[in-house]
Structure formats: structure tokens, C-alpha cells
């Protein structure tokens, strides 16, 4: 079992704007500084203030790649968090609740959805319990969950009195108090919490001092007020000598783009892509190995149409250019992508998927845009479509995307999802020198050349490319079909030659891109039980595979990383021995499974899908795989979790 004392899942919830993220940040930093591996999952509403958000933080001595949907420890300040999460706390776990809320009713929780209220009321009724916080707490106690009452107001008052500061000021430490009470409960060393405060408010000594006082008070309060002997979890530090950074998916992509030499990014604000561009803008200049100051120019445009066209324009001059967006913005970019592809412009689009269609679930995760990324745009054009599985991938793929774009003079769609963009993890600082920058066939023509054949027909399909501004490189570009010089034409023979030349680049890319970049196999490579997946599902699948191994079942994951050109030969070979073949996707239809069938004729035996906007957990997948192994005749297993 993994529910050991060095693998702790903590959840904190609260209204947006109340500092849930700050609390989670302090908790994660305290653990990371103490040398533990950290995984964080953030769930939030499309709302600025008041709606419920929560953060799952899982820490362990070994690397962790996925959250737990059943936390051991839950911290709440108010009724909505208690209502939503109390029933999820695992047997033997613990929760903190606010003393003032005990008699509050489930019905009275403002933003709790009517469906959730009805379900919770029925759940409590079945157990002869009132639909109140005290009913929920009694249910928790019956399930062996320790419930710790916290009179937060009293603690804040005590802090104000101790320090002689106004209560309002002391009240700002509420999140620190809550984090510190949780960490005190698991007897985690206080010095790491202090260090986390310094990382949270660098240089702001007054705030740090105030929060240190709050930490001390919380540790004393927990020692004096609670009997902690029935809560079995104790958190020991790990190896704090090992270099580590704590970052999220948006940051990993932004850093990868900078390492990969991107000098231009345009964007229009959209969740969950915006944070990447904001990070880039905040880090628009940086040191370089040649002693200069490097830079990336970030431009906020009027819409995504402008974002993609502007990035394409910049790319014509030789700047490595990209734009970042999510589904609705990507939909607006379709025409611009077609233009860029027709003119063989190296252009990277980072696509953070969220729940669709239309506005859908703007802050929730989904993998519903694979078909769209593969097929968007009218007419036919070549493109690279790649998907990252975790933060390491996100960093290196973000850099590699520019190499593919330059080498094949193609549009590259780099797909991530909301789950990956907002997940936080401790990772070793990336070795930037592992990246090699390849600019492809950029040419410096004889300066006396009057017109350059930019779209010369070649065997590989790739034509030497003069950058805008180069003497002798003048040519035309057009959304129309064109001659090798870029002049519009409707001649049938020239049309065929140009169409064939463009599409030939796909064959060249398919031939040249190494198999290890196209797909990766995890688990037991010889196993028959085969899971096909893509994107950020990997973390949950790997945990499920480990648990299957504990049960004596060996399984493997085939993670597809490049969907265009689709690795059909490689996959057909791998799947010849697959029994059963199970696709795992965070969408309704099993989009990758259908693409596989389209290219190879191979049909998956089972489909495990989840489309409620929340990521798969290891437990959910383990249970689905176990059912499949036991011979379920269900072809499509839908993972549902009403408590997320």
C-alpha cells in the first residue's frame, strides 16, 4: 500500500480570493525545501472571488506524478469546503473544521450546486444523520476520520494579542495558520515552514515575521488543544541536498520556449493559457551565455486571429515565433494556420485544452481537441501535432517544437491541457544544454538575385528559405496556390506540384523523427495488457500500473507523443501483441483510439474515458484496469467522480 507515512495527501479548500493558492504554496514549499517530492493539483472556477477552489498536495520521499482523490488530511475554513470534501477523506485520515460552522446546514451553502446538495442530503439521510456540518462530521468520525475543531477567530485574536497588532492584520495569516496546523499535526519540522515563508514573501521581512509568529502559535495550539495520537501520519523530511525547483506546466512551457530561442510571442488572454504568456512577459529579458541580455518580445493582441497572424508575420523575418491559446482561441486561429501552412512558415502554437465545446468548462481539463488540432483549417495541409505528458516533456517539447517548425517549415501544434498547465511539481533544474537548436534550411542568396524561388520543388518537400529582409531573397507570399516564386496561380500542373511538395514534408518528417520522440513505452515492455494514451493521463496510468504489478498483473503504457505525422507503422507493430488494448482518454469519444483505427485498422478492446473536466486519479484507473483484467464486457468505461 502506498498510504504510508512518507506519502501524504493534503487538501485545502476555500473561496477564491481567500488565499487557497497561497496556503497551498506554503505547504508545497515547506515540503520541497525539506527535500520531499511534491505534486500539486489545482481546481478552480471561472470566477474571481467567492467560488470554491481547492488544491491537492501530495508529498513523498519518492517522486509523485499524480494527486490522490482521497486525501488523508483536509483543511477547511468554511462550510462549502467541508461539504464538498469531508466524505472524500480516507479512513484513518483527519480534517480541520471551523468551530463556528458546526450547526450550519448543507442547504445554506451558497455556491454548492443543487445536485451536490441533494446527493449529500440523501447520503446523510441514509445514515440517519442531519444534513448539517455536524452530520458530515459525525459521518467522518464513524468512518474513522479524526475531526479537529479549530476556532480560527480565537487563534487570530491570540496572535493579535501576543504581537500587539490589530486583529485585521493578524487575520491575514489565516492561511499560514491553517498550513502550520496541518504540518504541526504530522509533526513536520518547523524550520522548513519558516523557510517556505521566506520563499513566499522574499525580502518582505515584516510579513515573514508576522507569519513566523503565526506558525509558532499554530504548532503550540495543535500540541495543546488536540490529542493527535489517533492520527497515524507523521511527515519526515527527505533529501534536502538534491537540487530541486518547484514549478507548474505553464512555467515549464515558458522556460522551454526561452531555452529554445523563441524571441516573439503574441497572445490573447484565455484560460488556461494566459499564465504562460504572463510569465514570459514578466521574464522578457534574461542573461545569456555570451554575456548579452537576451529577450523575448511578448505582445498582447486584440484577438486570437491577430495573435496567430502577428506571430506568422514575425516568423517570416526569422524570429522564432509562437502564440499560446486554448480551444476557443484556437478555433479563431484556424484560418491563420492555413495561411502559415500554405506559405510554409515555421510557427508554433501552444494549445492548452480545456473542457469544450464552445466556452465549455473554461477552467477544467479535457482532451477534446485532438481531432480539431489534427484537422482544423479548410483544405489540406501538413502540420506537426505533438502532446506533452508531464512537466519535463512540457519543457523540452516546447523547445523541440521550434526545431520541428524550422526543419519542416511547418505549423507545429503543441498540445497540453489544463491539468498539466496548473499542476505543480518538484523537478531537478533542467539542463538547457541538452537542447540543440536547429534552424533548418535558411538560405543566404546571391544578393543580386532579383526573385528567389522560395517554394522550389524538392525531393524532401523542404525548400531553402530566405528570411524577410535578406538581400536577393525577395519573393511573394500568398494564401492562394502559388508558383515557386510565390505568385498566385490556378495552373493545374503547378497546383499539383506545390500540393505534392507540401504534403511530401509529412513523409520526410515521419521518416526523420526518431521513434523515441513519437512514442514512449512505460511499465513492462513485454506485457500483453496494453494501455494506449496521450497527454497528462500518464501520471495516473503509471500509478495504476504499479498497483497492478503489486497484484501480480503486468501492464505497459504506450504514450503517443506525436500525432501528426501519426506513428502508424510503429504502433501497429507494438499492438500486434496487445491483449487487451485499452485506450485511456479525457474525452467522450476516445479520439486517439479512433485516429489509431483510421491509420492502422487496429481497434481498442476497451475505452476508459472521463469527461467531467477533472483529471484521472491513479485509483480510478487502477479500478478500471482491474475490472478489465477481470474480464468485464463493458467496452467503454466512464469514470465518474461526483465529489471533485
Amino acid at each position, binding site marked *: 500500500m502506498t498510504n504510508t507515512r512518507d506519502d501524504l495527501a493534503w487538501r485545502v479548500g476555500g473561496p477564491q480570493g481567500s488565499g487557497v493558492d497561497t496556503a497551498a504554496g506554503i505547504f508545497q*514549499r515547506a515540503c*520541497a*525545501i525539506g527535500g520531499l517530492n511534491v505534486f500539486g493539483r489545482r481546481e478552480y472556477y471561472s470566477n474571481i472571488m467567492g467560488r470554491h477552489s481547492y488544491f491537492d498536495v501530495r508529498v513523498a520521499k519518492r517522486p509523485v506524478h499524480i494527486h490522490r482523490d482521497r486525501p488523508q488530511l483536509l483543511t477547511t475554513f468554511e462550510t462549502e469546503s467541508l461539504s464538498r470534501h469531508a466524505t472524500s477523506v480516507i479512513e484513518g485520515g483527519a480534517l480541520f473544521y471551523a468551530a463556528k460552522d458546526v450547526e450550519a446546514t448543507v442547504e445554506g451553502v451558497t455556491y454548492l450546486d443543487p445536485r451536490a446538495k441533494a446527493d449529500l442530503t440523501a447520503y446523510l439521510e441514509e445514515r440517519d444523520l442531519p444534513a448539517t456540518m455536524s452530520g458530515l462530521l459525525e459521518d467522518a468520525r464513524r468512518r474513522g476520520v479524526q475531526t479537529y475543531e479549530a476556532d480560527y477567530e480565537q487563534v487570530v485574536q491570540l496572535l493579535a494579542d501576543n504581537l500587539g497588532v490589530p486583529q485585521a492584520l493578524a487575520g491575514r495569516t489565516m492561511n499560514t495558520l491553517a498550513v502550520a496546523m496541518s504540518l504541526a499535526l504530522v509533526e513536520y519540522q518547523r524550520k522548513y515552514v519558516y523557510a517556505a515563508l521566506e*520563499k513566499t514573501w522574499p525580502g518582505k521581512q515584516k510579513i515573514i515575521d508576522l507569519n513566523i509568529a503565526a506558525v509558532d502559535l499554530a504548532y503550540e495550539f495543535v500540541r495543546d488543544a488536540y490529542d493527535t495520537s489517533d492520527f497515524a501520519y507523521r511527515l519526515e523530511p527527505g533529501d534536502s541536498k538534491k*537540487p530541486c*525547483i*518547484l514549478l507548474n506546466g505553464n512555467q515549464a512551457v515558458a522556460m522551454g520556449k*526561452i*531555452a529554445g530561442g523563441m*524571441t*516573439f510571442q503574441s497572445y490573447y488572454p484565455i484560460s488556461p493559457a494566459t499564465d504562460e504568456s504572463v510569465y514570459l512577459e514578466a*521574464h*522578457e*529579458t*534574461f*542573461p545569456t*551565455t*555570451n554575456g*548579452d541580455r*537576451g*529577450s*523575448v*518580445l511578448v*505582445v498582447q*493582441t*486584440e484577438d486570437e*486571429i*491577430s*495573435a496567430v*497572424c*502577428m506571430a506568422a*508575420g*514575425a*516568423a*517570416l*523575418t*526569422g*524570429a*522564432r*515565433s509562437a502564440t499560446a491559446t486554448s480551444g476557443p482561441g484556437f478555433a479563431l486561429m484556424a484560418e*491563420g494556420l492555413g*495561411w502559415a501552412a500554405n506559405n510554409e512558415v515555421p510557427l508554433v502554437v501552444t494549445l492548452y485544452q480545456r473542457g469544450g465545446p464552445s466556452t465549455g468548462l473554461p477552467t477544467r481539463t479535457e482532451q477534446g481537441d485532438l481531432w480539431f488540432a489534427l484537422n482544423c483549417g479548410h483544405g489540406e495541409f501538413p502540420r506537426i501535432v505533438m502532446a506533452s505528458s508531464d512537466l519535463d516533456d512540457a519543457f523540452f517539447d516546447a523547445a523541440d517544437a521550434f526545431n520541428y517548425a524550422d526543419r519542416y517549415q511547418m505549423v507545429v501544434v503543441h498540445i497540453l491541457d489544463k491539468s498539466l498547465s496548473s499542476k505543480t511539481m518538484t523537478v531537478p*533544474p*533542467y539542463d*538547457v*544544454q541538452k*537542447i*540543440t*537548436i536547429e534552424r533548418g534550411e535558411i538560405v543566404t542568396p546571391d544578393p543580386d538575385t*532579383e*526573385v528567389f524561388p522560395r517554394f522550389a520543388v524538392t525531393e524532401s518537400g523542404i525548400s531553402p528559405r530566405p528570411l*524577410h*529582409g535578406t538581400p536577393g531573397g*525577395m*519573393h*511573394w*507570399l*500568398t*494564401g492562394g496556390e502559388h508558383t515557386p516564386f510565390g505568385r*498566385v496561380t490556378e495552373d493545374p500542373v503547378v497546383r499539383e506540384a506545390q500540393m505534392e511538395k507540401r504534403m511530401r514534408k509529412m513523409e520526410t518528417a515521419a521518416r526523420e523523427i526518431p521513434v523515441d520522440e513519437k512514442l514512449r513505452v512505460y511499465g513492462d515492455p513485454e506485457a500483453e495488457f496494453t494501455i494506449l494514451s496521450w497527454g497528462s493521463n500518464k501520471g495516473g496510468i503509471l500509478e495504476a500500473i504499479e498497483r497492478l504489478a503489486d497484484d501480480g498483473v503486468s501492464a505497459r503504457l504506450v504514450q503517443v507523443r506525436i500525432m501528426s505525422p501519426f506513428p502508424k507503422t510503429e504502433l501497429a507493430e507494438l499492438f500486434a501483441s496487445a491483449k487487451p488494448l485499452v485506450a485511456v482518454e479525457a474525452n467522450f469519444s476516445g479520439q486517439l483510439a479512433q485516429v489509431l483505427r483510421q491509420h492502422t485498422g487496429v481497434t481498442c478492446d476497451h475505452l476508459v474515458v472521463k469527461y467531467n473536466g477533472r483529471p484521472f486519479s491513479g485509483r480510478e484507473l487502477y479500478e478500471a484496469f482491474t475490472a478489465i483484467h477481470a474480464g468485464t464486457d463493458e467496452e467503454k468505461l466512464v469514470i465518474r467522480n461526483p465529489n471533485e
Partner: protein
Amino acid sequence: MTTATEERKLTAKDFQVPFPNDWCPGCGDFGILNSVQQAFARLGLEAHKVAVVGGIGCSGKAPYYFPVYGVHTLHGRLLPFAQGIKLANPEMTVVGVGGDGDGLGIGAGHFVNAGRRNLDMTYILFNNAVYGLTKGQAAPTLALGLQTKSLPGPNIQGQLNPLMMAMSVGFTWIGRGYSYNVKKVTDLIVAAIEHRGLSFLDILQPCPTYNNLHTKDWYAGKDLVSGQPRIYWLDDTDYDPVVPEGADDAVLSAKASAFMARAHEWGAEIPAGVFLDNRSTSSFADRIETRIENYRAEPPHRREIADAAGKPTADLSEMFDEVRMS
């Protein structure tokens, strides 16, 4: 703006191409094309440092008729493409060319937001009040109630005023020309390109095929009792378009009022020439340089991103330090 170092004096011929032109005979586009070619020659531009960026429609084809980096983009999108080129390579002279439907209909959002940025480039509007290439539908510049010959009835949508729109969104040089006056239009294009900031030149032009109202004869005032041409030139009046560097709000406000009075004139007397030459507003490159000091010295298009071995020059240690935990 970039000038040739060659000693030979350039002529319009240096900016012509040996390809047939498929505009209708008598099209106003020819006058504009001729003027742009003459302006490029007069400015002594080097062809490889010029990008002409067009939209969709008859006017959008103009880039094909210059031996420069000619970019025929998407309907309404010429400004985003043009800005991308200019932002990444500020050493290029970038000229946008497009129609009134392209820029003020489908591309209106880009027109508005380009004004807010004020890049150092030029946008020339080919304004004939109709969508020519799709056979004569009403453009946003066609007045309410008018019926050009392809319309099944009088126009029931209102007209927008491109000059007013350009001023309100921040274009810092605004002019108007008339396509058959090549000499004046050439002067205006030279001034527009020389202006340090975003220039907007509205060029009135007949569409002999689809606009039977705003014809060459109409502009010549043949329907008027006076028989005088409708176009008059602001440089023949005491109008002063210049907002000097460092001008205060009072000056700007006075200039705006004078501008509006002229920009609203239409009918028997239509003003043309330079409406606004605002030298008091920073260009986008100036603003970028407040954040990225070496933006002009090392612009995005030629920043050294890799060393001789192809290894990244970016040093991420500062970024890693911000999130370093141990």
C-alpha cells in the same frame, strides 16, 4: 525607413515587375500603385528591406506588383501580419495596402488596435466604397441610402468615417489622397513613410466597374453647378496638421477639434492632404525599449539564440533561482 546606398538614382521602374496586372481597365488602383512605386524610388528604398503587405480583394493583390517582399495575406488581416514583420524586424519599411471592406469591415478590430500601438509603419486604404472582387456589395464607407449598381436596393447600413476612426484610435499621421492625382498621392506616401509612427492614408478612388456613383466625373464635380472638382487640398488652406513634439493636452484638444471639422466635410467639397502629423506620441518601438533596452540593437529576427555548436544562449539560472527549493 531605409535608404539605398547606391549612387544610381532609383526610378519607379525599379519598383515595377514584368508580370501582367489583372485589375479592370480604368481602376483607381493603378494610380495608387504608380504613386507607391514613385514614392519608394524617391525615398531610395532597398527592395529587400521593404515589405508590402496586402489584404484580400482587388487592392490586396497590390503586393504582386512590387519586386520586394510582397505578402498577400487574409481578408482583413493585413495589419496583424504587417505588425508581426515590423515588430520582429524593425529595420524593414513596412507598407500595408488594402481595401475599405478589408480594413474597416472584417478587419476593423485590427485597425482599432493597431492605432493603439503606433508602430512605425504605413497603412494605405484603397477606398472605393464597394467590395469589388465579390462584385459590388456595399463597403462600410458607402453612405446610408446610396445604391451602387449591384445593390438590389439602397444601402440600409450607415457609413463610417475612416479619418475619424483613425484619429480616435491613435494613428499619429492621417492623410487623404485621390487616386488620379498621382503627384499629390506620391507626396503623401513619402510623408506617411517618413513619419515616425503609424500612418494612415485614405485614398479615394473610383471603381469603374461597380461604383457608378463615385466616378471620375463625380470627383471632377461635373454634376455640380459650379463644375469645380470636389477634392480640395488642405495645403492650399491655413490648416496646420502638425502636433509638435511635447505638445500638451490643450494643443492636442485644439488640433482634434480642427481635425474633426475637416474630417466631417463631404459632398461638394472634400478635403484631402495631411490631416494630422502628431509628433508628440511615442512609437511602439520606443515603448518596447523601456522594457527591452536592446530591442532595436538586437531585434527578435536576429538575436543570437544559439552558439556555434547549436546550444542555447539563454541562461535560465535566474528563472530557476526564483523557484529553487533546494
